[in-house]
């Protein structure tokens, strides 16, 4: 079924995002994962969320990440304690605390999955779906109007903050254009 296909793509892409060393590939694999998630949203009768997932996440945030990776030329990374072999496909954590953290995260995941799998009631999608954009818009501007306005102020603050933080100290140059776009 489509759910398992999209789910498999999302999990495989996310695993590769953190497992392989090249940051440019990581960004592209994350875009693939977002595409699979967008498909899952369509399966959940949420076409609006699917579309804005592609527009905002895959289309804007990831472009920002890609720009930063390219501008900082962060192409290769040496994993701790393990000499970077040419063409090594995986990254392995070597140091103690870092390794413990990674294992804890895996343990967390296993615990979640076990808890969910042994849940008693059957999760049926009995409730109807609200997929019309106008209904969403109505909710957004009535019940969630305050959050909406606060979010717009948040974005303004983030935009100003990003421009100020990433600005060079010396006279204006072409780098300013890239950081202006980074503030979207």
């Amino acid at each position, binding site marked *: 079924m489509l759910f398992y296909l999209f789910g498999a793509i999302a999990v495989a892409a996310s695993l590769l995002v953190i497992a392989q060393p090249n940051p440019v590939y990581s960004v592209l694999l994350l875009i693939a994962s977002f595409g699979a998630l967008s498909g899952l949203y369509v399966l959940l009768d949420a076409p609006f969320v699917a579309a*804005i997932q592609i527009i905002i996440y*895959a289309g804007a945030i990831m*472009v920002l990440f890609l720009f930063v990776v390219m501008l900082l030329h962060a192409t290769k990374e040496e994993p701790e304690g393990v000499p970077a072999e040419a063409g090594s496909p995986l990254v392995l954590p070597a140091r103690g605390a870092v390794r413990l953290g990674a294992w804890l995260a895996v343990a967390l995941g296993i615990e979640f999955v076990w808890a969910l799998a042994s849940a008693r009631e059957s999760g049926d999608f009995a409730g109807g779906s609200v997929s019309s954009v106008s209904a969403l818009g109505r909710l957004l501007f009535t019940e969630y109007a305050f959050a909406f306005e606060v979010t717009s102020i948040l974005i303004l603050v983030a935009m100003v903050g990003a421009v100020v933080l990433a600005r060079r100290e010396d006279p204006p140059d072409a780098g300013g254009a890239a950081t202006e776009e980074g503030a979207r």
Partner: protein
Amino acid sequence: MTPRFIAQIGLTLFVFVMLLNAAAVMVYFERKLAALLQQRLGPYRVGPKGLLQPIADIIKLMFKEELRPAAADRWLFALAPILSATAAFTAFAVVPFGAATTLFGLLDEPMLLQVADVNVAVLVLFAVTSMGVYGIVLAGWSSNSKYSLIGGLRSSAQMISYELSYALALASVLVLANSLSLTEIVNGQAGAWLGVVPRWHLFLQPVGFLIFMIAGVAETNRAPFDFPEAEQELVAGYHTEYSSMSFAMFFLAEYINMVTVSAVAADLFLGGWHGPFLPESLGWIWFLVKVGAILFFYVWMRWTLPRYRYDQLMSFGWKVLLPVAVVNLLVTAAGVLYFGL
């Protein structure tokens, strides 16, 4: 395998083939029109009046050697033109180009001349346009050459900047039309006021149309906003290192993006397939006429206007076009509230 299913598959193939043809026609059209504007002849030897010139171009591109710089990233270098071309074709999947038709009575109920009838068509269009940026960014990066990298970054920064004004102009039309589905937006433009002036959104939203077209030209990296790929400035920008079919894919992607922007503008602002004197089922003829008119303006602009410098282009997009688009949206919303349009 109902007749409807076969018809849908046929429609998909038809749209695909027509887009390829459209790109070929655009190649000829651009060269001929450029020649006329510059008072020379243009292609006239290959076939009658040079009409087979695109075929000669395609054959030449197919037989060229496919090169790849040694230090280029192999997978990304191959992936970039594919991404560009795929995004360009996919965007046209939600654009309707004719009224619902029963194909001369073969189908039980009318089928829309649109590959995918989604009721969030406008959002899908915008989403696919955002994905088109990646082809350019990856082409610039993977070529591992300074001209390509600068061209790629500049070009993609330009595209994402003008996407904002594009979206705001789109939003103004949405306020008027009350729906995200392109088919409904077009059908809302049927009929005429006083029997003479067609009910196009162009007359309700002249500023919006202007913003949309300017942003569309900037999105497709065409003159006068084609600084990142201008020959005199950056060799050929992000597609410097590409040759043969990969270059053809970028070329194809650029022309099909032009066709898509024109088709969307025709649907949103010019009433799509509605027009006088012809029955609904022949509406696609009007659609072709409108798209052709917009494409004519595209080519005319390229060979008439001088090119914007990159910083002028960016400052125009952020400091002039974006505020105008926002004000346009506000005025439209206020107008709809007070006049109940």
